[in-house]
Every structure is written in C-alpha cells, then in structure tokens.
C-alpha cells in the first residue's frame, strides 16, 4: 500500500530518473564531453592579441634619407634647430599604428612585397631575407614578417621636396589583395609627408586630441577575438543543451513513458517542473564548467554573468520544452529544433562585429542575453548599465518558457 507523498518528493523522484536516463545516454554524455573539450581548445587557438598596425616597408632607411637631406639643408642655410629636428625625424611619430621595416635595397623590398623573397626578423631584431625559390633555408629562431606594402623613396626625397623641385616621384609597391582604402591611404601618407617637408602647413586647424577621440580610447588595448568569443562560447553551450533536452523530452513523449508517469500520483505540473529543473541545471552546470575552463569572471562581473546565464538556461529550457513536444517523430522534432535555434544564434555573430547591431537583430529573444554577456565580460558593464537588457531578457524568458510549458502540457494531456 502506498503512503501519501508530497509534491517535492515526487519531483525529486522524477529528477532522479532524469539523471539516470541522461547518464545512460552515452551519446549525449560523449557529446557533452567533446564540446567541453573542443570549445576551450578552440578558444585557446584563437588570437589573444589584436594587430591594429599597418606594417609597411620603406627604402632607403630613414637615416639615409635624413643624411642626404642634412647636407642639402646645410647648403640651404638651415638653422641648428631645424637640423636637430631633421635628425630626430621619425616617420611613424605622427601616426600611431604605423610600423616601418627599412630596406637598403629598393629591389629587394619590391621582391619581398611581391612574395619572391621572404623577410624574417631574428630575436636580435635584425631583418634577414631568404630566397626560398633559390633554395635558401628559412632562418632559425626568426619570425616571418609579412610585408604587403613598400614605399620606395628617392634617396634625395626630403631635400628635393624641401627645395620645391618638380618631378619628385615615389613608388608604392603593393600586394594586389591589399584593400583599396589602404593603398589610397599610403598615397595620401606620402603626399602629406611631402607637404610637411615642403613646409606647407595644413590649411585647417585640428582640435585638441581629447576632443577627437570619443568613447573609451582602446588604442593598443583592443578587444581581442578571444575575448569576443568568450560570451559566444558560453551562449553556444546553453543553446546546444537545448538540443539534448528537446531530444530527451521528445523521447518520453514518443515512447509514452510520460503517460505511465501521469497515472501515478505525479501530475503534469510535477513532470514539467522536473523537466525545467533538470534542463536548467544541465545547461547551467555546463556553462559553469566552461567558465572555469575559459575564464571571464571577475570580482565586478561575476554576479551579473551568473544571473544572465541562469536566465539563458531557463529561456532555452523553455525552447526545449516547445521543441520536444513538436514533431511527430524524432526527425520531425529535429527539424523544429533547427528552425528555432538558427534564429537564436544570429545575435551571437554580433559579438564578432564592431558597433551597434541592426535593429532587427535586437528583436530576437536571445539578443538581450548575448548583450549582457558581452557587456559584462568584454566591456565591464555593471548591473546599472545592464538592467534594460536584463528586463528585456526577462520578458522573453517568460514568453518562451510559458510557451514551451503550455505546448508540452497540451501535448502530454492529449497523448
């Protein structure tokens, strides 16, 4: 004879069954393991720095240009002060983000840009050229320097321009895949150099530098691809668990084991509560494991990150409930799973792109989750700065979860 049993005890029994079923499913366990290994590996393969400079080759070296110009300046009667300024010339000074690699020989530089010569930088900072076509060996302990642009100045460039000589010509060698805007910028750069050396001031005034850069200046401290991928990986973990949960729910529906449960003291509500708790628990725990493997929590963001992950876990559990109840067979359920999860994935790509996202992307239910994750993990957003997205996420959470609950309840009751 059975004893009266409380609702929590029934839900506890159902949860124990869920765990048993999940743990016996070696395919899903294996998949979970694969994902928990692969994503961190992928994460660590990604670049953890941003190369925001343009590296250009220059020939002849700046000191040669300066040396030639010095003689001409002296002949023209330049003051000591002007000669001192010339000696301190650094072509990259005015332009942060420009890196020069100097070549003695213009022809060699052109060959490096063309790709028929390779340039390598040794640990000592010396540039070594190797002609791989001729069979030269690659130098040891050296890093390849990719040079897609080279500027060939005439040796007397500074002097000629300063003396306003006509017919001064500079050649810019470029790999054809260099974008048009960079090639155009090189032309502009050389012309501006010439204007400066010719003593022709800019016809405009520049405002103070502080007024020019808007927003937090991240020069030299850009967000790396790895940092951008962190929230995306966490989000993907949550979303992929949707597939697993939907499949397990679908199996119970299709095999009618839920019917067997519902003729015991367990009610539909107990069944749904157990699915919700289990689905959320699985998503959340995997997300936490991933967080431990790829990092990202700080003393400032931990509570916000955990809360939004929990919201995401519940939201996608709702999606899983809906998808699990749809479809007349397993493949049909899979079809619905893809139909729902593909749009939910779209906001994750916004992480990789600069600037604001398109307005139609902001409407998607997963957007606020991604937004808070990115804001808190990449840009250090606080609770106050995130409340709007959190509220929006809460609305979608309720909508999706209730929709999923209703769909599965209806399905179960009509079995």
């Amino acid at each position: 004879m059975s004893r009266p049993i409380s609702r929590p005890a029934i839900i506890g029994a159902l949860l124990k069954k869920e765990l048993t079923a999940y743990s016996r499913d070696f395919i899903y366990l294996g998949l979970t393991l694969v994902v928990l290994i692969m994503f961190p590996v992928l994460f660590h393969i990604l670049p953890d720095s941003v190369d925001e400079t343009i590296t250009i080759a220059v020939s002849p070296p700046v000191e040669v240009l300066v040396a030639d110009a010095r003689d001409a300046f002296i002949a023209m009667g330049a003051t000591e002060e002007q000669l001192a300024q010339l000696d301190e010339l650094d072509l990259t000074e005015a332009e942060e983000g420009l890196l020069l690699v100097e070549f003695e020989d213009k022809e060699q530089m052109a060959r490096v840009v063309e790709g028929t010569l390779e340039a390598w930088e040794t640990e000592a900072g010396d540039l070594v050229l190797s002609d791989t076509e001729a069979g030269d060996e690659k130098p040891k302990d050296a890093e390849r320097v990719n040079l897609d642009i080279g500027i060939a100045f005439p040796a007397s460039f500074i002097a000629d321009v300063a003396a306003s000589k006509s017919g001064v010509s500079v050649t810019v060698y470029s790999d054809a895949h260099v974008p048009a805007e960079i090639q155009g910028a090189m032309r502009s750069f050389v012309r501006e150099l010439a204007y400066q050396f010719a003593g022709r001031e800019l016809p405009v005034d520049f405002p103070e530098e502080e007024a020019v850069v808007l927003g937090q200046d991240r020069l030299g401290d850009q967000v790396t691809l790895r940092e951008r991928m962190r929230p995306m990986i966490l989000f993907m973990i949550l979303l992929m668990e949707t597939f697993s949960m939907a499949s397990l729910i679908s199996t119970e529906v299709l095999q009618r084991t839920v019917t067997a449960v519902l003729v015991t003291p367990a009610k539909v509500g107990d069944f749904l509560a157990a699915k919700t708790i289990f689905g959320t628990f699985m998503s959340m725990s995997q997300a936490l494991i991933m967080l431990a493997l790829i990092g990202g929590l700080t003393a400032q963001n931990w509570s916000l990150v955990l809360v939004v992950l929990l919201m995401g876990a519940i939201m996608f559990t709702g999606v899983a409930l809906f998808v699990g109840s749809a479809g007349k067979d397993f493949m049909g359920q899979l079809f619905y799973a893809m139909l729902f999860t593909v749009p939910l994935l779209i906001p994750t790509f916004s992480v990789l792109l600069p600037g604001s996202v398109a307005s139609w992307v902001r409407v998607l239910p997963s957007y606020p989750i991604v937004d808070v994750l990115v804001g808190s993990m990449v840009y250090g957003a606080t609770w106050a700065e995130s409340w709007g997205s959190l509220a929006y996420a809460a609305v979608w959470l309720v909508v999706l979860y209730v929709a999923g609950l209703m769909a599965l309840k209806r399905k179960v009751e009509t079995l």
Partner: protein
Amino acid sequence: MSLSRMWKVLKKDLALGPRSPIFLWAIVLPFALTLIMQVAFGSLFDPEPRLGIVDEGDSEITASIEGMEGIELTLLDDAEELKAQVEANDLDAGLVLGVGFDDAVRSGEKPTLEFYISGESYASNRIILSVTTIDLVRELEGGEAPVTVDIVNFGRAGLPISVRLVPLLVFYALVIAGLFVPGSNIVEEKEQGTLMAMLVTPVKTAEVLLAKWLLGVILATILAVVTLALNGAVGPNWPHVVIVVIVAAMLSAMLGVVAGVFAKDSSIMFGIVKGTGIFLFAPALFYIFPEWPQWIAKIFPLYWIINPIWQVSVMGESISTVWGEIAVAIAITAALGALAWTLARRMQAQMAGQ
C-alpha cells in the same frame, strides 16, 4: 548484386523524399543559407573603415569620398547624432563639414577640422581615415602636390567575403544532403521495421546501402552544384567542377551511410551528427578567416573534399592541380565503404536478434 533491385530501392526513396521534413530541409537550406549569408552577413565579415559625414555645405570632400573604393560612407544630418554613432563605434570616424568649409580652406582662413575618432576603432582605420581626409583637404586648397605617387600592384586582388563564404555554403549542401539524408533515411527504415521487411525479399543489404549511398550522392551533387551556381562559382571549367563535386558528394554520402548503419535509432543518429558537426564544418571556417593558421584545416577529413572545390570552382584552377586531394578523398571514401560493410553485417545480426 542486382542493379535493378538497387534502382527500385533508390526510386522508392526519391519518391518518398518530398514527404520527409529532412529531405525538404536539405533542399531548402542551401538556398536559404545563400540568401542569409550573402545578404545579411556578407558585408559584415570584411569590414571597411566606416566614416560618417555631416555635410552642411555641399563640400567636394564628400563627393570625393563617395567616389572612393574601400571606405564605407554614411551621410548624416545631425552632428550630435554623428558623434553618438562614433562613440558607439557604429562609425570608426566622423567628419563635420560646416557651411562654407571649402571656401574657408581655399581662402586660407584655416577653419577647424571637426574630426572625431571612435575610441574602439583600430589604429589602422584611424590612419586610413585621417590621412585620406587630410589629403582631400589639401586637394581643396588647390595647387600641385610636391610629389607624385605611383602604385605598383603585385599578384591578384584578395577575395571578397561573398566568395570566402562559398565553401561553408557548399559544405551545408554536402553534409545535409549527402550525409544527413541517407543516414537518417537508413535509421528511419530500421526504426519503422521497413528495412527488415525489405531484407526478407530478394533485395540484399549491399543493394539497399548502395541505393542509400546513391541517394546521398545524387542529392548532394545537385545541391552543391546549385549552391555554387547561385554564388557565381561555376565557370567555363564546369566539367572539372562537377567532377570534384561528385567526389565530395561520394565521401559525404558514405559518411552518411556509415552513420546510418551505426546508429541504432534517430536520437543516436542525431547525436552523431551533432557531435561531429564542428569536426565536419571546421575546414570551411578557414576560408572565411584566411588569417587563421591554414595548416590546421588539413587535420579535418573533409578538408580533402572542400579544398578541391575551392581550388577548381572558386579559384578557377584546373582539376590537375588537385589530383592529390581527390585521391585522398577517394581513399577515405573507400575506407568508409569498407567500414559501412562491416557495420552492416553487425546491424543485420542485431536486427535478426531483436
């Protein structure tokens, strides 16, 4: 082995295809993905420097930038809106050209250049936009530049993202149509018992599996070629394209047969596809992000079918440049075929014991 019986099984599968959501999904997905990827995401993977201009005086600078390649120009009406977008990094830089700016420059008044830079913009974009703007201001001033600059290009121009996405799109066609359709088809037949019903007739297991394989090959070939055509990647060397696509379809369909024979039910089949998804698709990502270390792509088995498609179809190379990769792909297909046969015998034993 009877080709006639095999053909009957294949004919049945082709006829039943439109009733299956997976089959329909396989047909629709490449078209839908082409549309989404090229329209929605195509321009977003290869960002150009973004410049916003508020031009209150019809400046020649605006007209010049409009005519330039490689700079994404946005014209706005309000300077505050411009500054907001720059601050939000919707623009790398912003320029406000007041009324009479051009005349002020020409007359030597030295107006202030109202130029803003986004804190999140890369140094390279800042350089590009600022030197380009300064150069245009110099042109406004008039007069001859003290130097002429000649640009000499080596090699061929880089590929736009719309082209670099093609391997990913073709991959979808190959994997969904070539792998998933035959695989799930076999599993469904097992689950419904129709496979056993067929095997108690004169039809042999090998004939059934061959029919499923051909189903995948045919579907994948057609959809891969259609995807390539939709993306403008089928040129005068189309016979070579068709050959490399067929080889690719053969391998992916054989993977599907192996998966279908191995999986006892739909959930396991799904698990296999889901679990190996990143493993299958990874090579395609290396075409989208050419700055990634390309040697990593060769670790993945489907690299050996996607690279020939890339070289022959997208890059227009002759098939002779990819014989080695085709040979590797055929060898992998043959090995998978042997595996499928071994697994099929185990599958038959399991079905008999049920």
